């Protein structure tokens, strides 16, 4: 498999605090990679660096052979990187339908979008998407009326509408019921192969359900990498993250 995304020696420091320090990570095309680690390990910061929210102090981020490290966020997004944030961030005053239309961003130019009024053929596709995440009844309601779980679903739908090649998911199942978590896992498994996905997650059941390879971060760099059983057998991982209980019972 070809390498899709490669982080090498990536580092960022906030006022001297090294949130990410010498991070190396290779993700192949179509792979679903889970990123775990204790609080403060730098998982979210790593995603921030990839999508351009934070600029690295040193190191490189190569995506499809292109250097992303100093690119502006919207250009990184246009080159095919989509992101779901930890705190659900949808457009609260827009309706669900409008949220989806904004996320459907095949054309990003100002003037191209100025002359587009009303329904377009893709609107129907967006309705199917809303149906898929169970929000079809809420299409014309403002997103502020949705519950927390529904907001999570809307954000996942936004990612699907955006249809990025590389998808970064930051704790997609936070605040979800076990059924909803299962559904999210199903979606992840469906996307696998067509999209490259990096998931940051705490829910180990979910991680085992979806992840092929798990990367464990600790103090800003990579501690271990491997399949779930390999990682849970790793002595270092047990020490910093899992305690004595082990991954199987977490």
């Amino acid at each position: 498999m070809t390498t899709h995304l490669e982080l090498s020696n990536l580092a960022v420091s906030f006022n001297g605090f090294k949130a990410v320090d010498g991070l190396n990570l290779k993700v192949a095309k179509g792979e679903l990679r889970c990123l775990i680690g204790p609080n403060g390990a730098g998982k979210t910061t790593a995603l921030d660096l990839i999508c351009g929210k934070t600029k690295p102090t040193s190191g490189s981020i190569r995506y499809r052979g292109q250097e992303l490290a100093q690119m502006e966020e919207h250009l990184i997004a246009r080159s095919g990187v989509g992101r779901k944030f930890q705190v659900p961030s949808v457009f609260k005053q827009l309706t669900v339908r409008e949220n989806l239309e904004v996320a459907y961003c095949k054309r990003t130019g100002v003037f191209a979008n100025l002359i587009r009024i009303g329904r377009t053929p893709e609107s129907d596709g967006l309705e199917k998407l809303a149906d898929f995440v169970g929000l079809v009844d809420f299409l014309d309601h403002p997103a502020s009326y949705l519950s927390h779980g529904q907001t999570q679903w809307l954000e996942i739908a936004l990612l699907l509408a955006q249809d990025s090649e590389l998808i970064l998911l930051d704790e997609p199942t936070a605040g979800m019921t076990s059924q909803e978590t299962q559904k999210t896992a199903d979606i992840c498994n469906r996307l696998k192969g067509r999209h490259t996905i990096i998931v940051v997650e705490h829910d180990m059941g979910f991680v085992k359900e979806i992840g092929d390879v798990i990367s464990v971060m600790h103090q800003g760099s990579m501690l271990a990498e491997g399949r779930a059983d390999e990682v849970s057998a790793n002595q270092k991982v047990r020490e910093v993250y899992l305690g004595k209980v082990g991954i199987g019972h977490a």
Partner: protein
Amino acid sequence: MSNAFTTFLNNRTAVQITVYAIVCGAIFLFPLVLDNDFLLNRYARYLVLGMAAMALSLSWGYAGILNLGQALSFGIGSYCMAMALKLRTVPVHTGEGGLPDFMVWNNVETLPWFWQPFHSMPFALLAGIVVPVFLAVILGWFMFRGRVTGVYVAIITLATLVVGNLLIIDQQRFTGGFNGITDLAQLELFGIEFDAYSKSTYYLVAVCMTVCLFLALAVTKSKAGMILQAVRDHEDRVRFFGYDVAWYKVLAFSVSAGIAGVAGMLYTVVMEFASPTFLGVPLSLSIVIWCAVGGRQSLLGALLGAILVAGMEGTLSESETFLDTWTLIMGAAFVLVVLFLPNGLAGLFEMLRRRLAAQPAEKPTEGATDAAVLADKGAAERS
């Protein structure tokens, strides 16, 4: 209530276009009811101010750019028109090849270069739109590329306005200074004379206002308009969809400036002079207040807010009973609106539409919350 009516109420865009059309129609029919040229001039003035507020709603309400310098675009439009109309009086007042009267008083000997092109009316009309738009693009580009947001945008635009105002006052030899540009000729377009105190001027204002209103509505209904609203809600998130947020904000900022420029030109026609107060801080802040009272997230709301507040100010300040207290009454009205109607008067209308649209499903109980009403509506849609 019939089913068709409920479907109609549920379609926000359809309701919007209908209401906009009805209001514009009423504005056109108004002179049939009111046959008083003095009052028509006054209402034309309110309509022009309404245009300025509507333009602000486009940038503030839809894109979240609080432009405290809206009067700069307005004033520039106004001076462009005044310069052109002033030059038309030159052959009459100071003879062929002469100068505007205030330049003669200030010992200016030749017409400055930037006055020359205003001999041409089409140039002046174009300049009244293009100059504010151009300035807005430059200022907007610097601000929004540099990711200046929120209160800093307000401070920068306000400061720019003050600079413009001081420049006009300071360059008395070329601008008439404090006195502004007075004693103008009447605007003549397509063979029609636009006397400020006549139906023709009122209709000119009404036509321009309608065109600008529907143009702005089209912008808000386009996908770009939707993206602007997304920017207002969550600017950073929009970037991660690949949109260059800065250019979208520049778009809203400059279209708003262009409409304000048109309003400024009309203001000169209606008032028959241009004055530095047209790009003064008090007017600029008033525009913000009108917008807030009417509902900044509604173009029509902002427009009607301006007409209502400016109209009330006019009426109260002239009535003997309120001669001393009218500012207090206006102040109290603002406080009440801000406290109880965060979305202005337009918010009240939107609430009414939602309630009416929800009614046939099940009669919502008295005092039902909006959420409950919405739930009812959802049930109606599913069944």
